[in-house]
């Protein structure tokens, strides 16, 4: 089996929340990554993407002005993007099935629902580096093959108060 040597890769982390960027950066350094570039919104992220040409993009979904979905669509422009094949890992608070499909249709490679864990993030990085999905180009879509099992249900109800309720209202 193989593992990923993150010290050989350049990562771009895009999140408007400084605390979340700090958490992701700490995790990435824990994985051994040396090059972790940060951007605080989608527009700055797109600029950093064109300037630094990262190997992996890790982005938040919800950001002001220019969100993670719009960013992904810009990066997946095959005729203008510096690297339309770059793996994009989206970190999000949204776990609804419709949101997962929306991200998939924009061209996101992997999704990670908050709260993030070291193992969850590492597994997504390992997936996009070691077993990347082929890309599909049609008239309406360019991005990773969407025939990919979506497990949105697995997140539903995880760690919520209803699991801990006792009594008649439960």
């Amino acid at each position, binding site marked *: 089996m193989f*593992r990923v040597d993150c010290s050989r890769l350049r990562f771009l982390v895009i999140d408007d929340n400084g*605390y979340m960027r700090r958490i992701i950066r*700490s995790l990435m350094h824990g994985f051994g990554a040396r090059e972790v570039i940060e951007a605080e919104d989608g527009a700055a992220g797109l600029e950093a993407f*064109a300037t630094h040409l990262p190997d992996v993009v890790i982005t938040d979904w919800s950001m002001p002005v220019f969100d993670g979905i719009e960013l992904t669509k810009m990066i997946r422009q095959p005729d203008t993007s*510096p690297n339309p094949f770059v793996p994009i890992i989206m970190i999000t*608070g949204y776990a609804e099935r419709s949101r997962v499909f929306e991200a998939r249709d924009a061209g996101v490679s992997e999704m990670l629902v908050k709260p*993030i864990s070291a*193992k969850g993030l590492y597994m997504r990085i390992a997936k996009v580096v070691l077993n990347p999905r082929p890309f599909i180009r049609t008239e309406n879509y360019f991005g990773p093959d969407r025939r990919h099992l979506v497990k949105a249900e697995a997140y539903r109800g995880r760690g919520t108060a209803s699991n801990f*309720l006792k009594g008649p209202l439960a």
Partner: protein
Amino acid sequence: MTRPNAPESNVPNTIEQDFGGTRLIHLSGTLRAKAAVRNSDASGVDDLSIAAAESAMKDLSGDFQNWMGDEVNRLVAAFDEYRSNGPGKRDISNLFRAAHDIRGQASAFGYPLAAEIAGSLAKLLDKIEPDYLPVQLITHHVDAVRAVYRSQIRDYANPIAVQIIHNLNKAIDRVVEARAKALAEEQKIALGR
């Protein structure tokens, strides 16, 4: 976006196959060639890297209490700003962002109940138009997040907190359902004209 003089190593070599209007592009494994190293563990999971990252996260955790406090203050300030504007001029974007961030981060900071309450508030703000939002229900959510933080309620062992969250969730479901029904009625009337 224009294509700069990209280093060759960052642009994958590809094998392409055509199937009618669909082109299948197999990446030649550029990143794999660059960063894959043999692992003695047959599972392929790099336990050492994960443990190192968890340890780095633990080092940060001393700051989580203050960070959570900052996020709660941001939520309260965004709510005050929302409330200070009259109907028709209310902007929920800052309030939504503050609630959404707490939903995503509070569990990592050690406040999963606050994350759930904020998630329920974010759902309300996402589903209902600004002028139809029940201000009282938003107030209850903001107060609940503040109380959870102030009282340091960090787990689901507190039955009162659990019951409050359950009731807030139910109230939101009712509001969302009622608004959806009203919209459907309005649409029916508009189509009937």
